[in-house]
């Protein structure tokens, strides 16, 4: 099977994520979309490392996972605080700061 398909898949996943951020309202879901984009990048990295036959890409993907994990921690913390004070996780409700 042609390895470039993995690239196509990663691009598709990234696009889905990028668009998902635009169309979903729930902060959690948006954040999941972002995670999806990160994983798409991971897929791309791994694929490329396969193509180039060196391990840099795979190492990088591990870094990414760790970083993603950190983001999850902080992100959820923030989202939860917002939820607690507003009783809503919709990002559209959080629009006091504008103009």
């Amino acid at each position, binding site marked *: 099977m042609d390895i470039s398909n993995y690239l196509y898949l990663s691009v598709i996943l990234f696009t889905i994520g990028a668009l998902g951020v*635009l169309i979903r309202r729930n902060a959690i879901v948006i954040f999941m979309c972002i995670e999806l984009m990160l994983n798409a990048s991971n897929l791309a990295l791994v694929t490329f490392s396969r193509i180039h036959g060196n391990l840099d890409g795979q190492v990088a993907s591990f870094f990414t996972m760790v970083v993603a994990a950190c983001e999850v921690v902080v992100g959820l913390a923030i989202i939860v605080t917002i939820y607690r004070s507003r009783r809503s996780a919709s990002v559209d409700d959080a629009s006091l*700061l*504008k103009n």
Partner: protein
Amino acid sequence: MRTSSHLVYLIALPLFSSALLLLLGRIADKWGHLLATLVSASTFGIGVSEFVAMHSHTGANRAATQKLFEWISVGNLKVDASLLLDQLSICFVLLITGVGTLIHIYSIAYMDHDKDRRRFFAYLNFFIAAMLLLVLGDSYLNLYVGWEGVGLASYLLIGFWNQNPVYAVAAKKAFVANRVGDLGLSLAIMISFAQFGTVSFTGVKAGAPHASPAALTAIGAMLLLAAAGKSAQFPLQSWLGDAMAGPTPVSALIHAATMVTAGVYLITRSNFIFDASSTARILVVSVGVITLLFGAIVGTAKDDIKKALAASTMSQIGYMILATGLGPVGYAFAIMHLLTHGFFKAGMFLGAGSVMHGMDDEVNMRKYGGLAKLMPITAVTFGLGYLAILGVPPFAGFYSKDKIIETAFNQGGGKGIILGGAALLGAMITAFYMTRVVVLTFAGARRWKDGSHPHESSVLMWGPMVILALGSVASGFLLSMGSSLVNWLQPVVNASNATGGKELMKPLVVSLLALAVVILGAGYAIVKYRTVPEIAPEQVSVFTKAARKDLYQDVFNNAVLVKPGTILTAGLVATDHNVIDGAVRFVGWVISEVSDVLRKIQNGYVRSYALTMLVGVFIGAVILWVVTA
């Protein structure tokens, strides 16, 4: 050409004393007028001594110069503050200082009651200084300084009683009209500099032969414009009538004898320009003719004695301008008429002043009448001046005016006929309105209120009148005896190449003709004004109406200049605020509108922020693609 070291005092003395009187203020009230008169007299003394000195020399050495200091020297423009006294300027020096002194004396009494007499005399001295600078400057630029100086003096003196708005306006009008003339003079100076690289009389004279006719005509026209402004010639004549707002001695000195004749001086001084450009000469004679008739006609309808005399001044100067336009031969006659006119017109103005003095400053001649008995001296002196202006032999006017008419005829051809005819016609009308003045004022029944007590003025006032009267009797004869003045001026106006033109008529014929028309005009006036209504009749001919309105000159000026000017000004003021400043404000408005749009885009929704980012990425991708592909 010799150098003299005294010329400067002619200007410095009166200038200094006027500055002194102005700076000292009230302290000088006691003796201010005396100092001024003394200074004026002493300038006359200097003038006479210089005149004598000139006689002691011959040829080119008659003219004297004095370099004071280097005034302006930039690039090839070099103008020294230096004076030139030659045969032409000495005539004026004597006239200015002589008549000036007489009028100083006269004013001592005339302005006696005025608490600002000192200021008046300061102005008079200032005028003397400026006028002398005008005639003594050795370059057009020096002349220009005096030129504007006398304008200022005239402005100050016309507006001497400027608490009266009408007088203030009259002063302003005079200054502005003069400025239009000055515009002409300054342009003439610029053209000469561009042409000859110099603005001195000698330099321009030397260069004139090499210049293009067009340039010479341009210079001539501009000089004529200047002359018109200063000498109240058509089309800039309108200010002279209003200028009578000034105290009568001023009218006598500035607006009859001296300043208003500066135009004649300018043209005579620039004879080398006009000799070289026939077109310019045509313009000059046209202006002269138009004005001499214009003034005469206006004069026929004026009831204000001073305005009537002013109109006659305008007309007489018309004669002089006409003469200057008649080529080399004419200059001398122009100057001669200028001098005689200086005597008789000044004399008549002083007479008018003395009448007003006796009549509580009443100026309307219809309220005079039969004053001859009560003011004999005034009446006699005035009468002599009257005979002189009419040109009755052997009085002064006869010599000067007839010469001009004669020369006009001798131009030959249709031109000669027209000019000469116009001059004759002018003489007739002059006879008419002057007779009218005399009759209304001194003859006939008394028409003044019982309240006023006409009386002869003090010796301080009639003394000068007598002297001037003598001048108006004798000056003409003296000046023309052995055509002394002509020969005297010959080096300046080089009338040597003056062909008298082939005589159309014998001089005697011309004189008889002139005398005839004069008698005609005078006779008609005597008949017409046997009885005079105290109030000017309303139902009069259109002709008279026009004349009373100065032939609608002010109406015209208002319609053509003042009104549009006012509208234009208002329009520009609005433009400045709305259009020019408005443009700037508009830019500001646009920016703030855009800013407002941006503000709305910043809508607070995190998802739309993400969208803008994504859009940014796409646009970036597109640009990148366009550039690389």
